[in-house]
């Protein structure tokens, strides 16, 4: 589904990612683990076309994404739920959702999709005409996830989706990811709740200082002593 080959990139002249290769198999959940500042968000932003890939190759569905700009990637089915939510603060919740489904591929089913999102997060329905900037932190996070799902992605890139969610909501998000995955969606997730993430994922990569240092099935990684110590806090 998605494969990165020796990808290099960063912010302007600062290089952060020094050659990362990874694969997300179709229909799988793949996790990115790593400490703060390891480069997970940077990889996500490069995938979404926000940051440039200076070397290496990104293949999605077999096609090179090098020349594809952000909106083309969304249209092709690769959607990012960014870290820090990035909702449109002065637009209403509903307008935020509609924007999530603005690419041509998703536009015909707008209305129905919004209803589905409201089913998933009833709180959003209650706040549908409130400006997104005035939502509570957790509500904004729900909105960001829902907005990402609006585009009917084939591959969903989740950057810390449960950040700031109460346990009950975080659980809901994990459950949702699992059921979305069952219905065929591929997922790449970066998340600090390592335990839950590994329970959910099929495969995982550990990122350190802009490089992949460990890779394996999540069951293997769960029992890897390095992971245990560094990311599970055992």
């Amino acid at each position, binding site marked *: 589904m998605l494969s990165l080959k020796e990808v290099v990139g960063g*912010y*302007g002249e600062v290089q952060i990612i020094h050659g990362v290769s990874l694969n997300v198999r179709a229909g799988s959940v793949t996790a990115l683990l790593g400490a703060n500042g390891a480069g997970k968000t940077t990889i996500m932003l490069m995938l*979404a*076309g*926000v940051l440039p890939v200076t070397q290496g190759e990104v293949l999605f569905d077999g096609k090179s994404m090098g020349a594809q*700009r*952000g*909106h083309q*990637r*969304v*249209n092709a089915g690769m*959607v*990012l739920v*960014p870290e820090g939510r*990035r*909702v*449109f*603060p*002065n*637009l209403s919740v509903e*307008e935020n959702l*509609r*924007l*999530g489904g*603005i*690419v041509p591929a998703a*536009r015909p089913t707008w209305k129905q999709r919004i209803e589905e999102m409201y089913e998933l997060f009833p709180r959003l329905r209650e706040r549908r005409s*409130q*400006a997104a*900037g*005035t939502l509570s932190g957790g509500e904004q996070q729900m909105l960001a996830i829902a*907005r*990402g799902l*609006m*585009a009917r992605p084939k591959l969903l890139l989740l950057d810390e989706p449960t950040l700031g969610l109460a346990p009950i909501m975080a659980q809901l998000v994990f459950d949702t990811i699992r059921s979305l995955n069952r219905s065929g969606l591929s997922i790449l997730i970066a998340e600090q709740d390592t335990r839950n993430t590994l329970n959910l994922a099929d495969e995982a990569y550990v990122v350190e200082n802009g490089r992949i240092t460990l890779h394996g099935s999540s069951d293997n990684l769960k029992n890897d002593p390095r992971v245990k110590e560094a990311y599970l806090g055992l």
Partner: protein
Amino acid sequence: MSFVDVFLSQQLLFATLVTGALYAIIALGLNLVYGTMRLLNVAHGELVMVGAYVGYWLFSVFGLSPLFSTVVVAAFSAIVGVLLYKFLLRDMLVRVDRRERLEANSLLLFFGLSLLIQNIVAWVETATPRAYQYMDHVYRFGDLAMTGNRIIALLVALAICIGVTLFLRWSVFGLALRSVIEQPEAARIVGVNVEQVHIVSLTLGFASAGVAGVLLGMMEQFSPFIGFPLAIAAFIVVILGGLGNILGGFLAALLLGAIETYGVALTSPNLRSVLLYGVFVATLMFLPQGLFAKRVSR
């Protein structure tokens, strides 16, 4: 004229509409450029001025109707907009390390551009004022008198304003545009083609400035140096109506038109600018986001 007469006068109403419509269409173009991309286009008035000249040339050399010229000018301005975007503006808008100084640099750029345009036109055409007579037959309906060109300008401006409003309201483009206004980066993430949005609003903005120029040239005299006050009027309207709020801009334009006619009729023409700027300044002091700011519930 007594108080009552003033309000009943059809002539004043007509004058308000014509002035308001002209302000509206000039401001519309600026709103699409400044309101959406934060490009401080101080050369907006020069675009209008060039529109007036092109209309004049086509009329006096080829005898083309200014109505036809609006189409030519719109197309021409749009092309200029695209070229400008491709060669000068894209970097400023898209490159992350340039966005910081976007407003500052765009001010400098457009200031340079306005000097350039003004002086090239002055060089080619001299600074001698121009005006021409087109459709200046006077139609009278009872007490109301209207020249043909003012009626036409009103109708064209109205049509364009309504057209653009409907387009922004009912097309996806309107929503995409608002997302770009809010957060260009997040807009890209959800799949908005940010560059396309930029180009469309820039071309729409430039085209409507050009058309406004043709309409203005039909009615008033012009010279290469009329641009600055026009740009200022446009900025006032755009800010009063709320940045990026197209409909708000139209209402603000109408309000200024009304002050300019009713306000002046009731007080004194000498107070024209005092009234206009007074209303503007007072409004912002009480409503720092303009007349039609969305108020977040508190």
